[in-house]
């Protein structure tokens, strides 16, 4: 890639994504730099980088959010480009601007695109105005006199929310428009009671919604392609847990439509670099939710089905190169699933867990993007995501089977993870049939519980522990051979 205008890339991130970006950077023959806080001194990202630059801050997270410091360090190190990864500064328009002003290439969209999509109301209006589907809604304040009429036009089912509300208080679902007027009266009085403000807002309610998003890629020359969709409906408290592509919930027509809508939105926004358009989908309808102007955690799913290296594509278009291929050249084959391995205890309301990484062995033949390394330590300082397991199969059934085997074969000892919970999700009949929605985990609290160990499992676990503990082995070995051979004999 000699046409790139930079010879080095600094990764302004940590964990698995820093490792993943550095992998491509180095594969392209570029120099890989990474910034790190002292808490990450022994992290795999630091080990993977050609140059690691320490950054400081009142907390480890604050250090990674300190754009000015990072730009200064990048300049001092002569970095040609900065890749922000996801999270931290990745959707910070000010940072993107500061990077550019420092004469460094920002691997991502323009600050304007970040700003547009970062403002949820502006983004929604932008999309709606250009004729793309957004959830029908009505805001009382726009014209209080016509509110009931406009609300009726939203169609059933719909959701009435207090404008001043939050946390679900005062929300009412209306499935039959005949009672809409009565419900509006009640919602208004509840809003008044809870928040001292009776103004309302109505939007289409999607029953058992699915979260489907589309990967898009644009260059600086106005070319935009989509890289197909990802389904991310398996979530817990808005945190994605399992992502896959293609979505098992879309018909081929719907799939084409949703992908083209996404590409259209990106094109309308003059979007460059990698981005993701998120939709809410239910009952054959889909509505624009938001656009993420960065590389997503779940991008490997797309890489697996399209065969593209998204980071390489990002670097290429960031360097000013045209995409060089059209939509027809992008194909999706087989089925890919990503599972997020979290340091958390599903049986204790998903409380975060910590501990030493005593043994870490990843399954053979499967992509695992890891932010941990054997000998390291999982702390509470950062996000609890430890690694991503990505599998690719000829079809969904094969992919699920591979995913389950990969989780079973992945060994992480020293810190509790959600691996067993993920395996229970994979085995869930609704997941297996593809009949899922974002409330699936909340709807099935039993999935969070470890099934009780049977006697055989218990015996084997205790045997493994007993044989591994010096104290216990020494106690057994101390018995003279003669007496040991007699066992528990009594006269």
């Amino acid at each position: 890639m000699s046409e790139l205008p930079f010879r080095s890339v600094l990764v302004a991130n940590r964990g698995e994504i820093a490792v993943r970006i550095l992998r491509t950077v180095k594969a392209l023959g570029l120099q890989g730099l990474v910034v790190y806080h002292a808490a990450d001194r022994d992290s795999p990202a630091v080990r993977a980088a050609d140059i690691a630059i320490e950054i400081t801050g009142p907390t480890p997270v604050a250090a990674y959010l300190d754009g000015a410091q990072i730009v200064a360090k990048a300049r001092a190190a002569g970095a040609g480009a900065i890749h922000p990864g996801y999270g931290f500064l990745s959707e910070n328009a000010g940072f993107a601007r500061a990077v550019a002003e420092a004469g460094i290439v920002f691997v991502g969209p323009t600050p304007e695109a970040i700003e547009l999509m970062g403002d949820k109301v502006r983004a929604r209006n932008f999309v709606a105005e250009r004729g793309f589907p957004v959830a029908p809604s009505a805001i009382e304040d726009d014209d209080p006199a016509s509110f009931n009429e406009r609300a009726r036009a939203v169609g059933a089912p719909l959701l009435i929310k207090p404008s001043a509300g939050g946390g679900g208080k005062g929300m009412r679902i209306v499935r039959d428009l005949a009672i809409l007027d009565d419900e509006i009266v009640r919602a208004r009085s509840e809003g008044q009671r809870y928040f001292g403000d009776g103004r309302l807002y109505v939007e289409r309610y999607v029953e058992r919604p699915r979260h489907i998003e589309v990967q898009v890629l644009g260059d600086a020359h106005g070319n935009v392609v989509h890289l197909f969709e990802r389904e991310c409906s398996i979530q817990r408290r808005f945190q994605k847990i399992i992502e896959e592509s293609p979505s098992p919930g879309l018909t081929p027509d719907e799939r084409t439509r949703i992908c083209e809508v996404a590409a259209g939105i990106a094109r309308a926004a003059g979007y460059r670099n990698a981005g993701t358009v998120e939709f809410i989908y239910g009952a054959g309808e889909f509505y624009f939710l938001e656009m993420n102007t960065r590389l997503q955690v779940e991008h490997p799913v797309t890489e697996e089905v399209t065969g593209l290296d998204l980071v390489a594509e990002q670097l290429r278009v960031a360097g000013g190169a045209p995409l060089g291929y059209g939509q027809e050249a992008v194909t999706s084959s087989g089925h890919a699933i990503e599972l997020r391995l979290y340091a958390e205890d599903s049986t204790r309301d998903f409380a975060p867990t910590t501990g030493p990484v005593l043994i870490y062995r990843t399954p053979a033949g499967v992509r695992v993007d890891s932010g941990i390394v054997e000998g390291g330590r999982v702390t509470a300082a950062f996000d609890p995501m430890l690694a991503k397991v990505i599998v690719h199969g000829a079809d969904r059934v094969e992919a699920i089977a591979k995913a389950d085997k990969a989780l079973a074969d992945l060994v992480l000892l020293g810190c509790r993870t959600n691996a067993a919970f993920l395996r229970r999700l994979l085995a869930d009949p609704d997941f297996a049939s593809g009949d899922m929605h974002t409330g699936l985990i909340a709807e099935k609290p039993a999935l969070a519980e470890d099934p009780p160990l049977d006697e055989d499992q218990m015996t084997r676990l205790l045997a493994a522990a007993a044989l591994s503990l010096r104290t216990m082995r020494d106690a057994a070995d101390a018995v003279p051979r003669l007496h040991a051979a007699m066992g528990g004999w009594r006269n």
Partner: protein
Amino acid sequence: MQHMIAIEDALHRVWLSRDAQGYVLHLGAQQWPVALDGTALRVAGAASPVTIAVDGDRVYVHIDGAAHELVYQSPIAFHAAEAGGPAEDMVRAPMPGSVIATPVTAGDSVAAGDTLIVIESMKLETAVKAPRDGVVETVNFAVGQSFERDALLVTLASQEG
């Protein structure tokens, strides 16, 4: 006499002995010939592949595609605690997090169930309660400080003597 091993919150009385053939695991009235050869665990002749890591009194076992944590407790510590010994004086963190309130200070009298410290973990607020009536000896963390699981948050004055 038995060793104590906890799996999750369940405590098991376990003993390992030897006979002429090898090790024998004792669980209650049951006994099983057991052996561990590298990554092969044998219980009553049946083999399972395992990966095991020991960290002090903690044993981590990956078996049947899942990881488990077991915690060893010496009989002395177990029986001392069982007899209402010093364990109740120590109030430990149920999960890692940070402190958001410290309603008591050293010297305060508290009743069982009183809140000793309020912690936040993953946006969840948890009030840590006094396990018994007593007097606070130390509060080991200030508001804003973070800690890991099992950190000693508050100590109650010993009732011994």
